[in-house]
């Protein structure tokens, strides 16, 4: 609006006022449409959560009556889950695998990512593209010989096959870290080199502190991946019930208590709760991590 209004004739002022109002009305209507769309979709995403929670608070009969509100409200399903199955044991087993895998992933992936971002060597780019290429390989192709090797080690059933591979760097984590490391100006490491830092010091004292968000991200991704893992646990440790993870235990529980939906849902709530908590504490890291691997070439 560079033309001041009183220079216009009365007619144009009217017109522009009308146009402005029309535009406002349209923006308002669009706003309503957008927000009702957003809200409807949000309801669809939230509804299963709502249902899981309320069914976990119902008694057995009511859970089969498709009611949307618990009546009477009961908290007995939670103690029942904990007492009928070794739920705490499963949680501990899952936690041990996830936590040790996180330790492994952080130790193993930082050095390769550093070498692929802040060290200059011949063939670096080729190696990086090659590593990206290995991400395309379906896990099934390597699964059988790996299984057989672990069987020869006498590691089946045990949780070692699920933990030990994490102490070797994986393509996805290297990729995520490397993408973050590249965004750290090389002037910092170059300056460090001029000042006589060893490469090890540069990595540990300059890059690692600056790359904390990316390191948290791979830690969280690894933790979630292991918490979620079903297939690995299924083939490596389902033979020994003492080693069962939540995924295996809960599947079994679901199959055996197909009609006791209230207890199954209580168990599901307990299963997903740690991840939801992790998510709320680390949402920013999480969203940025997903984005980093997804769009930035």
């Amino acid at each position, binding site marked *: 609006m560079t033309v001041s209004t009183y220079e216009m004739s009365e007619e144009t002022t009217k017109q522009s006022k009308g146009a402005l109002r029309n535009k406002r009305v349209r923006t308002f209507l669009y706003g309503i449409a957008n927000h009702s769309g*957003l809200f409807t979709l949000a309801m669809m995403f939230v509804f299963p959560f709502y249902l*899981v929670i309320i069914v976990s608070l119902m008694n057995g009969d009511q859970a089969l009556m498709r009611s949307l509100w618990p009546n009477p409200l009961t908290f007995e399903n939670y103690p029942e889950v904990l007492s009928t199955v070794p739920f705490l044991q499963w949680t501990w087993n899952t936690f041990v695998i996830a936590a040790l895998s996180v330790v492994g992933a952080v130790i193993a992936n930082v050095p390769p990512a550093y*070498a692929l971002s802040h060290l200059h060597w011949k063939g670096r780019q080729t190696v990086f593209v090659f590593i990206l290429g290995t991400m395309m390989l379906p896990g099934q192709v390597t699964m059988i010989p790996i299984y057989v090797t672990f069987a020869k080690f006498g590691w089946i059933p045990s949780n070692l096959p699920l933990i030990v591979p994490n102490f*070797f*760097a994986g393509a996805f984590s290297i990729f995520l870290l490397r993408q973050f490391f590249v965004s750290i100006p090389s002037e910092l490491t170059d300056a460090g080199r001029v000042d006589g830092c060893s490469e090890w010091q540069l990595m540990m004292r300059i890059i690692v502190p600056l790359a904390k968000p990316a390191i948290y991200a791979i830690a969280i991704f690894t933790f979630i991946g292991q918490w979620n893992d*079903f297939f690995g646990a299924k083939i490596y440790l389902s033979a020994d019930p003492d080693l069962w993870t939540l*995924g295996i235990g809960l599947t079994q529980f679901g199959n055996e208590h197909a009609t006791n939906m209230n207890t199954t849902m209580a168990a599901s709530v307990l299963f997903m709760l740690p991840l*939801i908590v992790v998510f709320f504490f680390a949402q920013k890291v999480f969203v940025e991590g*997903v984005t980093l691997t997804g*769009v930035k070439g």
Partner: protein
Amino acid sequence: MSLLSGKAVRPSLKRGATAPKPKHGVKTPGFFIFMCMLPWTLGFLLFTAYPMIASFYQSFTRWDMVNPPRWIGLANYNRMFYEDELFWHAFKNTMWISATSIPIRIAFAMFSAWLLTKAGKTRNIYRTVYFLPSMVPVVASTLIFAWLFQPYFGIINMFLQKLHLSKKYDPIMWLDDPNLSKWALIILGLWGIGDTMIIFLAGLLDIDKSLYEAASLEGANAFQQFRYVTLPLMTPVIFFSAVTGVIGSFQYFTQAYIATGLTINGDYTRSMYFYATHIYETAFQQYDMGYAAALSWFLLFITLIATVIMLVTQKRWVHYPNGSMFK
């Protein structure tokens, strides 16, 4: 920056292309580079290179893990293509879910991300809500959805009955209906769209707003803006999720496996029997390792073909504004 700009400390630094020679310490960090890459190199040799060679060899053998592998030439592949009907059944199911779910997932991720860009101040709240289901462990979400889809006690049929789309005494069977079970799995997958959606959202927010202003000055309506501005600029993201989607869908296992266990009729038509399920059954239920290795190599072959086709055709439809990792 300020450390190095201005006075030229070293000419090589100004160019910035090559690393400067360090004053003291390690002269050439060759050994250091080797040590840095070691966790990956060892992992690659132990968990990728060796197993690939081994499984390629095993695919030409008959092997039950008890007796030593016996060379049988191409018999496994012959069995796969000409004798194993379950293989073709699993293959068709996998192709179907791949071809159906990937476009639906991309469209849905795009739509929900697009809605989020319109959310204004409430965007972060909505983003959290949309993202949250993708945090639910697959085992839990499958249990939950098997319950929602339960024909007699499930909530979904209750709503459909209220809308007169389903009958009380002849309900929609969902997971127990061979024609609908895969759709139920697709819907379950859409609930956890969050991580894909976040990538789409980042892509949409990356688009320069002035492009829309320019388009609207040229008289483009909302649809034209989407078609000629948003869509072309989103093609790298679409391409990325198509590639990862194809690779992922060939390995689709857990949801189908757990859902099958929760059906009333045990899915006797094997409508949720996918390629990865076939490998699992062959390898870890029948311990027919040689044949399972052959199956897994065919999976690799198909994945490679699909990826190569996409990489080759991407030049026609994917627009990279700043170059790409695949260039």
